[in-house]
């Protein structure tokens, strides 16, 4: 499948580059050739064992009877297979419901982040009103503040919203909206929009396009790569989030997987529990495998921003 932003993906590496530290001349020496091959195979084995190994173990143990996993956790071939553990995790432990909660939380956070980041990036990067420099500085200033500073005051605000005295515990908006306050998203968008060719904007203005039209018909379609990067990281970040949903979503039926899993560990049969862990990691891993290039270049993009 070819996604539009796959073609236009921002690869950090120069694809033209054909050489690295060890040159072709070096490779003509047999000793170096053998060492390099050994090193590469060694690296691959190391990555397979360390990167993939624990996950393979998790998948294996989710279909291995609990007693086998407890007695011989490293056995390659257990005595039996027990697919029913996955089914039990899905139905009786209600992974389906918590998974749905996680998906719903991730979707909302994604939507809020995209709306806030694109509109703010457009306003600060393209429309550039007079006070945009100050606002940009205020956004960058929040990068200096570690998120923990926000935790306690945000929690108190949620528990008792000033003036109106609402108690917003168990309300998904409490997770969705703060996710939008991401300085990194806005800076990424703003930078991307600023680098779009301004002649196109001017031409559109001459043709009578207003700001909304400019935003919707020109800027957004040209920004698919960066929107893709921000989207993927938005979804993954919500999927990973633990502390905030743990504090503000108390109703067991509304809690996402990340909050439920530690709570149910002690009361769930081990095999079923590992099956639940497998089900919980399935979607992020599939997302990663499908959008691999976007992930890896996105890490490059945020690395380039950092670097």
């Amino acid at each position: 499948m070819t996604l539009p932003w796959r073609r236009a993906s921002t690869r950090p590496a120069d694809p033209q580059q054909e050489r690295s530290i060890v040159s072709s001349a070096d490779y003509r020496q047999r000793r170096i050739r053998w060492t390099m091959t050994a090193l590469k195979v060694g690296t691959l084995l190391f990555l397979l064992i360390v990167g993939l190994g624990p996950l393979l173990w998790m998948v294996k143990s989710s279909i291995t009877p609990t007693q086998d996993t407890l007695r011989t956790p490293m056995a390659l071939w257990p005595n039996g297979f027990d697919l029913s553990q996955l089914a039990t995790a899905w139905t009786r432990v209600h992974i389906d419901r918590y998974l749905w909660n996680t998906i719903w939380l991730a979707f909302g956070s994604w939507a809020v982040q995209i709306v806030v980041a694109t509109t703010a990036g457009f306003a600060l990067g393209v429309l550039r009103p007079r006070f945009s420099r100050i606002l940009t500085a205020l956004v960058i200033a929040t990068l200096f503040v570690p998120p923990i500073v926000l935790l306690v005051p945000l929690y108190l605000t949620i528990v008792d919203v000033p003036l109106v005295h609402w108690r917003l515990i168990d309300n998904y908006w409490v997770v969705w909206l703060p996710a939008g306050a991401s300085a990194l998203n806005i800076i990424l968008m703003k930078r991307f929009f600023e680098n779009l060719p301004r002649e196109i904007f001017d031409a559109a203005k001459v043709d009578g396009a207003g700001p909304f039209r400019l935003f919707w018909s020109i800027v957004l379609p040209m920004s698919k790569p960066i929107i893709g990067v921000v989207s993927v990281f938005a979804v993954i970040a919500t999927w990973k989030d633990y502390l905030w949903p743990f504090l503000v979503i108390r109703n067991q039926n509304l809690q996402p997987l990340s909050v439920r899993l530690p709570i149910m560990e002690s009361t769930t049969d081990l095999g079923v529990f590992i099956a639940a862990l497998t089900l919980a990691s399935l979607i992020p891993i599939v997302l990663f495998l499908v959008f691999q290039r976007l992930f890896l270049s996105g890490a490059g993009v945020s690395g380039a921003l950092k670097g």
Partner: protein
Amino acid sequence: MASISKPAPAETPTVRRRAIRLRITRDGLSTVAFMLPFLIVFGLFSWFPIVRALVMSVQETNLVSTPTFVGLDNFARVLADPQFAIAVRNTAWFAFLALIFGFPIPIVLAVLMSEVRRGRGLYSALAYLPVVVPPVVSVLLWRFFYRANDTGVFNTILGWFGIDPLPWLQNAVTAMPSIVIEATWAAAGGTVIIYLAALLGVRPELYDAAEVDGASIWQKIRYITLPQIRNVLFITLILQLIATAQVFTEPLLFTAGGPANSTLTILLLIYRYAFQNSLGGDYGMGAALSLMLAAFLSVFTIVYFWLTRRWSTDS
């Protein structure tokens, strides 16, 4: 003719002024519309809580009575708390261990991966895979790996080499290194990808030139590769320090700060002050400690911003 050349003086200023005002209000309105989601979300969930944290740190706040001003009392109480010194020491220990494990391994991996010409994508994917696993899942999985009896996963592996079982998370000495190993496993992939991008960005001419001068592979690594990616290395180092100072999920879920407070980190202590206090949340102390941590970390953040700005204008 006269009527054409005439009109300027009286009319133009007003016409022009009206045109300008029209443009400002129309553009102004749409600009405000575009700013609105951003202003609301940042105002409510970023700027306001930051200000409120500052206010709360000098107040005695619980949810029942109205807050009272107590000056620097909250800070004094945090500094006097014996748990504070423990948390600072543990967090520094965590950061140090995370550096020992998490700094050299990604460099070596990235250098080796940059030499791979076919199938580098597979290497990158494998290295990055642990990063996409939700942290709660990794921690709960590794908790099982760390089981202290001799049929625990890691103890079974140690047994293959004839090594006695380790207590891992259940011992005050080994608990923190165990947590760091998992945290490194979960995070190193991201660093590898950043280093790899930096390595592949090194200009090939530099290597060509070095070879003309007869440089060996080690000399190329020593005098070209490492200096060329020095900035990225240093910046990742600072970011890693900032991140490790805020470690929370791992110690909470692995050990909840135990055994004997050996894994109590600063964030865990903030959490204890605010949310795990049997006497009701001491939000003032939580806010005070958060601000102290923020002030300390801002030194690193300022260095980081200063360096990135300087280095990005240099190149």
